[in-house]
């Protein structure tokens, strides 16, 4: 069997808020297989966002072991973390986070620029946009696109560097349910076609129901895993 793309053992994260220590993660262990679609659920304050930041290499755990696609993520400096995010992680945010003044094409191109991809950047970006059904909108700016279309651009941006995992943080949170479902269908479809591992952070049980596995967090610990 394939090695899991994500192996996390006993992750803890402690924030210092002044004098107080906040334990956001209190020993989280989990494995996610390549190509799996997983939902992470939990109430606010459950450590959901912290877990996403840690798994997405935006932040390092205080202790514990984390291996992402064969690379041990620990004691890396900021630039090395940036590199791993660039190559192995694609992010989809609730509020899209597109650069408002850039066209869809250059938004999608952005990760390629930071990975110092020299040739064919425009072509790769165009293909990614086509794969999310926006081949005819490549020169539109985000303000000229609907919310659903903006999220499609964000998905294309997440996919353009062929990451090992795509982390979607409430990807449908800012969309109405119909468009939200379209986005979910698109994500699931992309997973089926290209086998990209998909981790969706959500508190919407309807969204979670469409995934293969739900990881519930409570108070910094994994509460239960629903297959």
């Amino acid at each position, binding site marked *: 069997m394939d090695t899991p793309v994500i192996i996390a053992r006993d992750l803890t994260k402690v924030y210092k808020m002044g004098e107080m220590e906040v334990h956001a993660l209190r020993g989280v262990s989990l494995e996610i297989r390549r190509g799996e679609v997983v939902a992470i659920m939990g109430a606010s304050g459950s450590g959901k966002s912290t877990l996403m930041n840690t798994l997405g290499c*935006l932040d390092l755990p205080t202790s514990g072991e984390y291996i992402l696609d064969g690379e041990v993520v620990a004691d890396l400096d*900021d630039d090395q973390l940036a*590199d791993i995010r660039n190559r192995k992680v694609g992010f989809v945010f609730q509020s899209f*986070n597109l650069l408002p*003044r850039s066209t869809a094409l250059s938004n999608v191109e952005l*990760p390629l620029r*930071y990975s110092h991809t020299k040739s064919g950047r425009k072509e790769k970006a165009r293909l990614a946009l086509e794969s999310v059904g926006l081949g005819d909108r490549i020169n539109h700016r985000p303000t000229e696109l609907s919310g659903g279309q903006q999220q499609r651009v964000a998905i294309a941006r997440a996919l353009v560097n062929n990451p090992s995992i795509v982390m979607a943080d409430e990807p449908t949170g800012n969309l109405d349910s119909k468009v939200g479902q379209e986005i979910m269908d698109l994500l699931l479809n992309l997973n089926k076609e290209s086998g990209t591992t998909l981790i969706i952070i959500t508190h919407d049980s309807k969204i979670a129901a469409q995934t293969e596995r739900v990881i519930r967090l409570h108070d910094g610990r994994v509460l239960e895993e629903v297959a």
Partner: protein
Amino acid sequence: MNIWQPVIEALESLNANKVRSGLTILGIVIGVAAVIAMLALGTGAQDTILGSLSGIGTNLIFVFRGGEDDSIRNPEPLTMGDAEALSDIFSAPSIEAVAPILQGNAEISYGGEATTLTLSGVTPEFFPVRNYVVGEGSEIDEEHILARASVVILGVDTADTLFGRHEGVVGETVRIEGQPFRVIGILEKRGGGMMGSEDEAALVPISTAQARLLRRNPADKVDVIFVQAADADLVSDAKEEISEILRREHRTAVGEDDFSLMSQDDMVDTASSITGILTIFIGGIAAISLLVGGIGIMNIMLVSVTERTREIGLRKALGARKRDILTQFLVESSLLSLVGGLIGILLGWGIGVIVGIVATKSGTPFEPVVGLNAVLLATLFSAAVGLFFGIYPANRAANLVPVEALRYE
């Protein structure tokens, strides 16, 4: 990575905040414009001064009465005798020609027209020594001197004032201080000089001036003696010889010279040192205004970093390294400052040209000069200012923690 990409991006982001960018660069624009305009005018003024200095004559030495400082009491006046002694080829081999001159205000009139001007009593040597050329008529010669002839040579402007023209007036008779003088020549046009227009002139034989127009005590006193050295290399030798002869004539002790010498080179040096001080002064103003402009840029870049915290967080999430963010903001601030500098150069150039046109219209021909070095310096300096004052905001942007930056509202 493509070098133009950050530049294009920076232009886009500056373009998005046009008014703010414009106001921000105003400090740099004004600073650079002031420097360029002042340098253009300064260089132009220097050229004009040097030009008029060399127009006075060639290898000239001015001899004045009175010592270098005020400690010499009762300085003996310069006299025709001194001038003759200086003309002695044996004691003064380096001297080519000597032209004593007597000057004073006098009223000159023709018909109903009258004007008061500086009248000069001159010798025949005056014309070659001072580069004065008589266009129409003849120069003052030895016979006029010996005869104390009542003849006068007029400058172009003086002739225009008196006759309304400056051609065909030779042979007319004008009155100087009420006495009739025959016009024997008109000087060629000379244009502006160091002490006003040299076309407003009236030259009479020095003996005539001494006897009847500008009486002095002693009677053979002169105001200035122009001495022309035989060669540019002999100017300092000539100065030595003049000093020796005048010390002998005036019987002064060593170190108590009651006369002073100034060569054209000395004047050029004086003019240059004045321009030098001016340049330092302008440099100071420039430094202050660029400093203020730079702080303005830093300020607005800090605002921009705060405003774009989420964008920075996003870029970091997508894999931007510290250096990428640093470059982005540094390019933006240098570009801001550089554009300000370029606008400033054009503005300063324009101001210089306008001042030049106004000056020329009002009678002082004057050409502002914008040197390539000034332009290059201003360009480089403004870019450097942007770079320097961008370091702090850019560092702040580059060191933002991605998790927190993404959460920023």
